């Protein structure tokens, strides 16, 4: 049995129907990862937490981030979400979360953006506008898949109308499942991108701080 957090919408039906009680409800919330494989729990085999071995990458990225003076500008694209993710993204700007205090801003134009933040499973009609937004961004640029639709299609991916998230459409730097991810998880994911927070999920196992 496998558990793929990239496709989990947190409906908790598994905890109700599993005859062996293999699933239980948790309060884990910060699920952002850099490598999508880290969201897959392969099952009974004890998942070996993988030490981060991307130090070379990290050095290059650290240099890039330094170039931006720690300020990050985000262009959000809704590629077919249910609007739950948008609601939580908008909440980042309310006085409670006040994202600006971290030097992180949403920008109207992709030309000013460092990060493309995508929600939704990528509908057939939004694929082209999404790609064109990405192409309009200056380099270096990053991509975050926010919400389970964007990380794995969730309940809404597939069929004639939708793709299965960003896989195979854009190169993704941070994957954040959640239905929707709450604002704190979104902030953690942004800080993970900026190397100001450590990744908490490895091999599908959540490590408590």
């Amino acid at each position, binding site marked *: 049995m496998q558990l793929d957090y990239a496709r989990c919408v947190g409906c908790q039906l598994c905890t109700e129907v599993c005859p062996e009680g293999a699933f239980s409800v948790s309060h884990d919330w910060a699920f952002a990862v850099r490598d999508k494989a880290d969201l897959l729990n392969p099952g009974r085999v004890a998942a070996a937490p993988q030490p981060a071995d991307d130090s070379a990458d990290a050095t290059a990225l650290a240099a890039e981030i330094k170039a931006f003076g720690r300020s990050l500008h985000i262009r959000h694209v809704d590629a*077919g979400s249910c*609007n739950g993710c948008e609601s939580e993204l908008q909440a980042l700007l309310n006085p409670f979360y006040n994202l600006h205090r971290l030097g992180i801003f949403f920008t109207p134009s992709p030309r000013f953006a460092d990060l493309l933040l995508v929600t939704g499973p990528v509908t057939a*009609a939004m694929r082209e506008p999404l790609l064109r937004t990405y192409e309009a961004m200056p380099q270096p640029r990053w991509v975050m898949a926010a919400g389970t639709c964007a990380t794995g299609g969730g309940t809404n991916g*597939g069929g004639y*109308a939708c793709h299965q998230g960003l896989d195979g459409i854009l190169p993704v730097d941070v994957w954040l499942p959640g239905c929707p991810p709450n604002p704190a998880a979104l902030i953690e994911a942004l800080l993970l991108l900026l190397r100001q927070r450590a990744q908490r999920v490895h091999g599908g196992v959540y490590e408590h701080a």
Partner: protein
Amino acid sequence: MRHCDTIRLTPAELPAAADSLLSVLGDTPSAHGRMQMAYVCRCAADAVDVIYVLSQGANQPYKVWRVRPDDNALPSLANKLPLLGWYEREMADLYGLRFDGHPEPHPLVLHEGMPRDPAPLAHRFDVQAAALDFTPQPPTVPQVLGPDIQRLPFGPVRADIVESAQFLFFYIGEGILHYHPRLFYKHRAMESRFEGQTLRAGAVLAERVSGIDSVAHALAYAQAVEGAMGWRAPPRARYLRVILAELERLYNHLHYLGHLAKTTTLKVAEAEGHLLEERVKQINARLTGSRFLRGLITPGGLRRDLDISGLDKALDAITADIDSYLLRLENTRSHLDRLMTTGTLPRQVAFDQGATGPIERASDLDRDLRRDHPYANYEKVRFSVPVQQAGDAHARSLVRMEEIHESLAIIRQTIGRTKPGEVLRFEPMEEPDPQGEGLGWVEATRGGLLYAVHLSADRSRLSRVKIKDPSFSNWRVFPFTVEDSNMMDYAINEASSACPSPVPTGKGERPCRYGPGWAGTKAAPLPPGRSVPGTTVRMACSVCRGWTRRAVSPATVDAAIAPPPARRRPSRCATVACSSTTHAA
């Protein structure tokens, strides 16, 4: 179908039935009745039925027409019942049906350039199928020619954190000549995803049709399934459903006011509205574990019980802040000045084109499913349905402000009446519907939401689910409020409608868009002396700055919707005084 009178018609009988609808129910908004939706249901291997669902007025059962198309074609009813125009185009796009004589036979859900042959749902939906691959083409718009006319395509990737949609403006200077919203960039085939799912999994899917309406969708779905199965949720579950639905209305309306304040450039009011929304979302999270109140409502009741003991205190803690916030908004002249007379939606247009929710109630259509077709336990609580007459952006915001107060009152009453007990029950309380079909309805934050559910033969799975979302109705109406208005007001208008508003009256008769069958855009005169239940208006007193409640007489209404003076002023502020004797002089 449960809760419905069903009759079967032949395609040839359809136009006459539509005519009789106008003569029997009447073509005036006060008649209450209205076509609700139309959809395709695959009822046999090689045949489809088109099902029309009609409302016949308060406390009357819904009416259902079933029609089997001849050779994939039906006569279009969009010339008689304009709000059907979009439903027919949706069926044409997705199922390949033809509607003969449709006044706007253009693509709607499938954009220009998408492969249409075969239609994507001509065969069963396959979740493994590849997404449509196509080269985008420009939308079908009327030819707009003129030396000074500018064309502005806006979107689908727009400024700010918003949902994807494209808006096309044709304008001269500030004046908007033609406005074309191109929606359905986000078409996800959600209805098809229900097919073959279990009843329990369907509730999870319903919550993911619209995140900020999770409760409304799950509730409408659950009630439709319960109708088909003959179940009835236990009393405690029905009361808790009321609480969940009103909490959802509360955070949505607070968000709405914050967003509206943003469009009138009130930074503090924007922050405060969104902070209040956040506080309600946190109450939601503490109560249910989900900021969107997800994971609770399911056919048969609730998946688990809730502890509501701390809810009244939590709401007490924000009630005064909400009240003072609304009061200060209503006392901010720069805000009111931008809202009054902006985006006026005449009553008859709102009715003909299918406006719903706060938008129709701001245009003097007094309808609310919670009162007119009670569900959950709404028949056990007392509340009034706020209605406004002006039909402008200010009216729409006033309706929502009033609804915030009503929601808080409903939750308080419900908390007091909720007794301990079970919350999930599957025993049939009445005979299951013989066809395994049910209709569920909810007055969602943005208006009437309907689910029609068809179960499989063994009643364990879903075979067809149709969703009538309020925004599908309201987006159809919105362009009527934009054309002839100006670019500066557009953002306010859009925000005030949460999808939007106005055809200014007094600028001459607009050309009739939908042919001779349509009544035209003239505003329906208010019947003299008509008394509408709950037609009192909460206004800010200009002396003490407190709330006062005013019964609205036709004279007041006439004054309120009279053409604005040369210099627009929120004159209403100067004329309203509350009954306090301390400043009667």
